[in-house]
């Protein structure tokens, strides 16, 4: 009767093995590939944050880089001007990006999917142009901001890529943990319902506008915090890092991945890592990348790893049935 499932008990060892591999990987990789892995890690962090908005709530957001930019710039400005340590700025960056998302999304969150898509593209363009135009004399114009301090954890100054590797992939791990819990909760369930049929969701008592806004703000503030890590790693940021195309790549990573967290991380590998693997093709690599996106979507429209269903403990049911059965005999 019951479908055969991946045994629950096997999940923990599998995760442990993955963590082991991730922890040991930098020991065998050269400098170049460690740097690639750091970039992929940031991409994964951003893709996971976009997944809450796009994958879980089904809100078409093609301007995610805007919130990433807000976080990175808030970090850069506060760090270079007020010398606040970078990692202390994580909450500030998250809050600023979340606040921006709230202000922007409130009047438009009810728009139909495709309208939202172009509006979010507009937002990322407006943010980029604002940064270039040096709003308030704070953003440094087209050159951006340089001299951002390195982060420090327990007195250890993080400057080498291998250290960033652990910092960023640690953040990815934490994100996966928190977001998978979110997914297995009232809020995650509501988002699934909204994605599937928002009128039905509203009709059975879910506050659709509020839940969508919640997802949007959470995803944006997470991207803002990723912006802090980005600023800390680069020490220089400029508007060129937060364009429409960066948003497009994140969008592609989420859809390619299929919406599960593992899938989205794989998607980030494909989108941010694959072009590096094709580096030998030099100028043709983006051509191949474009072709690969098309081919992958045609072969697997649902994405690499679509989310599985949530599990519920209905053990009490069989216990009760057994009790009832005992009573009868």
């Amino acid at each position: 009767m019951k479908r055969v499932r991946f045994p629950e008990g096997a999940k923990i060892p599998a995760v442990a093995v993955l963590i082991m591999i991730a922890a040991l990987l930098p020991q065998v990789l050269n400098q170049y590939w460690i740097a690639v892995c750091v970039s992929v890690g940031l991409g994964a962090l951003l893709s996971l944050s976009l997944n809450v908005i796009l994958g879980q709530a089904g809100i078409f957001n093609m301007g995610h880089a805007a919130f990433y930019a807000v976080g990175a710039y808030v970090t850069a400005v506060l760090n270079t001007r007020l010398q606040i340590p970078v990692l202390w700025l994580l909450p500030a960056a998250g809050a600023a990006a979340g606040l921006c998302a709230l202000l922007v999304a409130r009047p438009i969150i009810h728009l139909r999917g495709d309208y939202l898509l172009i509006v979010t593209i507009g937002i990322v363009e407006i943010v980029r142009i604002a940064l270039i135009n040096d709003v308030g004399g704070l953003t440094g114009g087209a050159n951006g901001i340089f001299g951002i301090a390195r982060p420090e954890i327990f007195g250890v100054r993080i400057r080498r890529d291998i250290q960033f590797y652990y910092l960023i992939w640690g953040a990815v791990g934490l994100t996966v943990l928190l977001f998978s819990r979110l997914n297995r909760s009232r809020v995650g369930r509501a988002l699934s319902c909204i994605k599937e049929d928002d009128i039905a969701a509203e009709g059975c008592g879910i506050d659709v506008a509020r839940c969508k806004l919640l997802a949007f703000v959470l995803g944006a503030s997470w991207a803002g915090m990723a912006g802090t890590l980005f600023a800390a790693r680069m020490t220089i940021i400029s508007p060129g890092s937060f364009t429409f195309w960066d948003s497009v790549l994140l969008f592609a990573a989420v859809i390619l991945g299929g919406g599960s967290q593992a899938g989205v991380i794989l998607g980030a590998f494909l989108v941010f890592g694959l072009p590096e693997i094709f580096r030998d093709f030099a100028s043709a690599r983006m051509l191949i990348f474009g072709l690969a996106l098309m081919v992958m979507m045609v072969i697997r429209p649902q994405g690499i790893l679509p989310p599985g269903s949530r599990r519920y403990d209905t053990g009490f049911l069989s216990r009760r049935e057994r009790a009832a059965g005992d009573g009868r005999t």
Partner: protein
Amino acid sequence: MIPLLSLENVTKSFGGLIAVNDVSFRVEEGGIVGIIGPNGAGKTTVFNLVTGNYAPDNGDILFRGTSLVGRKPHEIVSLGVARTFQSIRLFPSLPVLENVLAGRHCRMNAGLIASMFHSPAQRREERAAVERAVRELEFVGLTDFLEDRAGNLSYGNRRLLEIARALASDPALIILDEPAGSMNQPETAVLVRLVRAVRDRGITVMLIEHDMGLVMQVCEKLIVLEYGVKIADGPPDAVRSDPRVIEAYLGQDD
């Protein structure tokens, strides 16, 4: 005594078409009320006005004395009015159990932080919600399909699942839009028993139905609409013998 639901001179038009024209009626607590009328009489529009999917042009809709006008559908569910859809609107790719949990959503409190950290209160609430959802599935007789996708159920079972989802929100009033639509004879018999069992839980039932046999058998009060106007209401026997009703509706069938 304040009625459970009262419509006062409610009017709603779409473009030039007046779908509901100056309709007033009351529904007292307890009991099963049917809204009948020929196609296009405005029955579903009345339901959609009550559930907040449409806003009336005129008039007021009161639930236990508070106006529902201007409230969003989800607020109205929280107030205690649950519904099913004529065209069945489940979440087809989600498991049956989660469809019912969606109905429970508005009675749960866990916020974003509690959900991300699975606080003890959140876990307790979640466990209780799952138990409640399972009980509602037992109530409508769908326990065997707990883990199936809602989209894989038969039409009759989908209607039952929609009722379970509505019941999970602790409604005082449940509104069923053509619950027997696309059901066969045995399924309809199950539905009749179910509707009565819902009433016996103290929940007032309002339903739209085309199957006159079913309506006469199960409803304790009828409201008859024709072209958006209420032409009669009262107990089934009285309505059945009302000449306007016979002319407008029942006469056609015979």
